[in-house]
């Protein structure tokens, strides 16, 4: 996004200039987004409200039209912040647990009461725990750890024997007697598919009905190549569902 006017005067600041300082991360805002996208930072640890406040404080509102570029920048921010809210919402949404009774009706008032009471207890337990962990975090253990005496390596005779067996087995030539002669090529099957497609869309299952495993595999590979070349499209309405080949344009 350009925020430099033809005269070279800097106008509204680009989002790339927005830096943040949170407990979990400090640096450019765009870096934070990158870390979240790469799963290197847990979205649930990012305080979104704090983030928005930070943005508002760093970029106070200006009267409309006074600083060009501001609208774009704000829009960009709102756009990315909304995505973060969505991501965080998804990360925090209760995992779907099939529970016949509750699915349609929602929890009964009594269930809800029990759940809330349990949660209240957990919450108070957590508060007590937080205080206790904080207190113990400032008790430091001795720094006079004893340096270990030099240790001696231990080798197992059994493991050495197994290693020898493994090393020797590796150098044996792999047997090929189980492999049959390969008698079919991708080109042949591609030709077959293209011929069949002249009559319109084709079910992959019908195509391979009378083929053996090898020919089926090669046929699939041929179909993929043709799809990659744009000569056909592959469609499947559901995972593991029937596969349909449609002639390309």
């Amino acid at each position, binding site marked *: 996004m350009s925020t430099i006017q033809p005269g070279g005067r800097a106008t509204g600041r680009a989002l790339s200039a927005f830096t943040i300082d949170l407990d979990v991360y400090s640096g450019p805002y765009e870096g934070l987004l990158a870390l979240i996208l790469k799963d290197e930072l847990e979205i*649930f640890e990012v305080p979104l409200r704090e983030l928005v406040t930070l943005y508002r404080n760093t970029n106070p509102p200006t009267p409309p039209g006074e600083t060009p570029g501001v609208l774009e920048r704000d829009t960009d921010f709102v756009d990315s912040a909304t995505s973060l809210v969505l991501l965080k919402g998804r990360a925090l949404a209760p995992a779907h*647990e099939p529970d016949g009774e509750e699915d349609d009706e929602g929890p009964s008032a009594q269930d809800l009461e029990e759940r809330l009471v349990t*949660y209240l207890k*957990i919450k108070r*337990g957590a508060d007590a725990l937080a205080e*206790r962990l904080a207190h*113990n975090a*400032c008790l*430091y253990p001795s720094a006079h750890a*004893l340096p270990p005496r030099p240790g001696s390596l231990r080798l197992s005779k059994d493991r050495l024997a197994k290693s020898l067996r493994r090393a020797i087995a590796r150098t044996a030539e792999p047997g090929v007697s189980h492999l049959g002669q390969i008698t079919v090529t991708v080109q042949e099957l591609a030709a077959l598919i293209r011929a069949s497609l002249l009559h319109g869309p084709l079910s992959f299952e019908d195509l391979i009905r009378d083929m053996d495993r090898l020919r089926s595999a090669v046929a699939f590979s041929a179909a993929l190549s043709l799809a990659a070349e744009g000569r056909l499209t592959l469609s499947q309405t559901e995972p593991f569902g029937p596969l349909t080949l449609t002639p390309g344009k």
Partner: protein
Amino acid sequence: MTDGNGYESTSQPDAATPSAVFCIEAVLFLSPRPVALSTILQVTALSEEEARAAISELKERYSPRYCGIVLREVAGGLQFVTNSLCSALVERFREEARPAPLSGAAHEVLSCVLYLGPLTRAAINAARGVNSDAVVRNLLDRNLLTEAGRDQTSPGAPALLDVTEDFLLAAGARDREDFPTLEEIVEPAEISRVRERIKGQESEHPRMDEPIRDPEGG
């Protein structure tokens, strides 16, 4: 006199037998981690009775009232730590800040597992009403939770999570029992208030959606 590694050759002959108290002091002084009584007995060759007597003498001597070094019973063992009164000084001396505390969500998950556990991930999610998988992963990484067996009664036998020895150490607890019970922590009045509020809501709105709750444990 050898070096800075905890050895000293004074004029006293090494052959003299050190007292039980000396032995335990020396062993604990050289251990950043708690030392189990069984280890102490094994290393010092003291009888359990002698060791226990020495330990109670040491607890008195290294009590927070009398000493900058405190003897505590924690995570199944004994450990010397600095007196909490000295924490600010220690952080100044080591030029390092106290590690960042855990998030509110992490405290809630630990509280769930401690009080209701061992629990599966699904049970933790259900108890908190929000997905806690990421928090659990983080606590497993920090070795505050561990997988302790599997729930054979649930489909797929999901892992049961429990708190670890490091958790007990971080909480300064001797064992799992060394925590106040939930009944001691939560005011009965507070529980009644929640129940009342629900009843009130119920009469106004017979059906209620999942309540909104601060996922960060706010």
